């Protein structure tokens, strides 16, 4: 407990080649969707605060791959990755970005509050830390219902400064709840550096040690490592051993919200950005797959073009969909 990785190796299997290819497809899908969003953002048709996940793709992909579709996931405003990895409908996602009636949330949420409860992506929150206790509640229900469901919450490094994180860790540790707390530590909250906000900024994975919640700190840009940590945590949770923290170190390429870059106005050192760009989770997996002869250049081209089609179709669907009618305003308040 409290080490940089979980001691137990139960439930650990390294990903098969087939799985790795599927991870690659998911990650590339997330990437390509966001590239298109960034490209078209200036058109002013996707009008809602949009927080790009580019750079983080391995985290959502690797964690969610270790789950069942029925396992509930709660995310935060940087929500596109969870939605797609969980199997949410791409058309409905882009329609939601265009705030259309056909959107995943009928135009009520936009990018930052996306969800798809049908596939277990239960909700996003735009309040930092807001989902942590809710995911813990999913796990509480699983325990009360004696189901082997596992709940997952994704959140940023900033969320670990909010008290509700510790309140939930204590309760999850006390009741041995089947919940996995996934912190995507990208070292920034908006423009604010983690060292300006946290007394010890390198121990998020270990913050559960005082509550009997073990943790692992992993390379969030390496989907195999993410998947492996997730499998261990899921196995722990499903077998009644309780919660786990996974701290995945990663990096956000874009500015906090919107399609620009923090390097544009000199806030982040260009060098830092370049260094992390070299750790591109998608490209690096692609390289490995080619190196290990799991895929060849042709396969890549095929996969790319399949995804391009999905992306294109989704934007077409979204653009031609109608806006919500005024009567939608008062629906679903209660």
């Amino acid at each position: 407990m409290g080490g940089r990785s979980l001691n137990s190796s139960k439930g650990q299997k390294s990903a098969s080649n087939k799985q790795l290819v599927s991870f690659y497809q998911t990650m590339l899908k997330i990437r390509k969707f966001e590239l298109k969003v960034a490209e078209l953002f200036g058109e002013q048709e996707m009008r809602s605060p949009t927080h790009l996940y580019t750079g983080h793709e391995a985290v959502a992909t690797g964690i969610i791959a270790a789950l069942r579709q029925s396992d509930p996931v709660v995310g935060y405003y940087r929500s596109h990755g969870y939605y797609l990895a969980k199997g949410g409908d791409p058309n409905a996602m882009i329609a939601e970005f265009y705030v259309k009636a056909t959107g995943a949330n009928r135009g009520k949420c936009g990018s930052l509050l996306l969800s798809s409860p049908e596939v277990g992506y239960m909700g996003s929150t735009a309040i930092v830390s807001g989902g942590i206790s809710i995911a813990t509640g999913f796990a509480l229900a699983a325990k009360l219902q004696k189901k082997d469901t596992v709940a997952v919450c994704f959140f940023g490094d900033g969320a670990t400064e909010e008290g509700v994180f510790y309140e939930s860790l204590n309760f999850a540790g006390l009741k041995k709840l089947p919940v996995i707390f996934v912190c995507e530590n990208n070292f920034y909250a908006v423009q604010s550096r983690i060292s300006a906000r946290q007394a010890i900024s390198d121990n998020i994975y270990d913050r559960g040690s005082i509550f009997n919640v073990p943790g692992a700190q992993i390379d969030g840009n390496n989907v195999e490592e993410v998947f492996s940590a997730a499998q261990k945590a899921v196995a722990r949770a499903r077998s009644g051993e309780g919660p786990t923290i996974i701290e995945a170190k990663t990096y956000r390429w874009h500015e906090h919200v919107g399609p620009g870059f923090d390097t544009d106005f000199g806030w982040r050192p260009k060098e830092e950005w370049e260094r992390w760009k070299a750790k591109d989770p998608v490209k690096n997996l692609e390289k490995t797959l080619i190196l290990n002869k799991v895929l060849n250049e042709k396969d890549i081209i095929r996969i790319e073009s399949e995804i391009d089609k999905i992306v294109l179709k989704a934007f077409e669907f979204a653009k031609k969909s109608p806006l919500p009618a005024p009567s939608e305003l008062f629906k679903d308040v209660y």
Partner: protein
Amino acid sequence: MRQLKYREAIAEATVQAMAKDPTVFVMGEGVDDPKGIFGTTRPAYEAYGDQRVFDIPLSENATTGWGTGAALSGMKPIMVHARNDFILLAMDQIANHAAKWSYMNRRRVPWTIRTIVGRGWGQASQHSQSLQATFAHFPGIKVVMPATPYDAKGLLLSSIFDPSPVIVIEHRKLFERSGNVPKAFYKVPIGKANVIKKGKDVTLVAVSDMVREAVQTVGLLKGTRIDVELIDLRTVRPLDIQTIIKSVKKTGRLIVCDTGWKQFGVASEISSQVAELAFKYLKAPIVRIGLPDCPTPCSYSLEKVFYPDYKDIIEAIKKVLPEQKTRKIIPYSKMKITEIDNFTGPF
């Protein structure tokens, strides 16, 4: 008919809800202890044990999120807080999350928060607030305030089985009061005010413990010609404004008595809606009765001036009715007060 105390009615509703539906459970600080929550949760604990009635850490904000997650998973959580002051710590989960979840995600959050207003005996500023207006400001939340043992049971049962988040605000002063409570499982509908007494001169709307005071006042006015129509609001959100409007159309006069602060409070909302929807029926200004503009003091000498009572209601009646109607009201010194505060603490 069978008599139960307000607190016994709450306890009975809890047990019956749990008997009827295995997804109902109770969590809260001290819900399993023999004195805890004034005896309202212990019977459920005794009947259903610590898997369905359990103690939790002091973490109000997270607790509300645990309830939301559980509710979204098919459970019906009842969260209990000994004072509504404490759930100001949970405002984020109540107002930013539970209130909006259905709107955002089209999945409903059927939880219930039970919480209590403290009043009197030196509860002072942090244990006496009556915060219905604060919670009711948020669409997506429902707020009920039972004033009788009958409603305490029936409204709690409605709340537990309501598909939306409901905050049940009980009142400490009512816990030992008795009233008719049928043994059977029954519901009192949320969003429906109760016309306790018909009358034609003035409409008196009261909330929670102020219903007690209003009933006493009506009693004190027996022998005058004043025919009060007394309405127990029962639900703060959604407001049953139609019942009030109907009454005001008849009486032309309205007094609203709330347990919370007057400013930005429930009485203001009712007053403004009536002034908008029934303006031409009004024969006199609407009078709001609520707490004055300061925190709750501790000393009983100050509590006496802080909390409104029958005298404030009678003064309001004198204000809205013509003099010939109120002439027969006897002096306060001659009134036989039945509502004597015999609470003796320590909490």
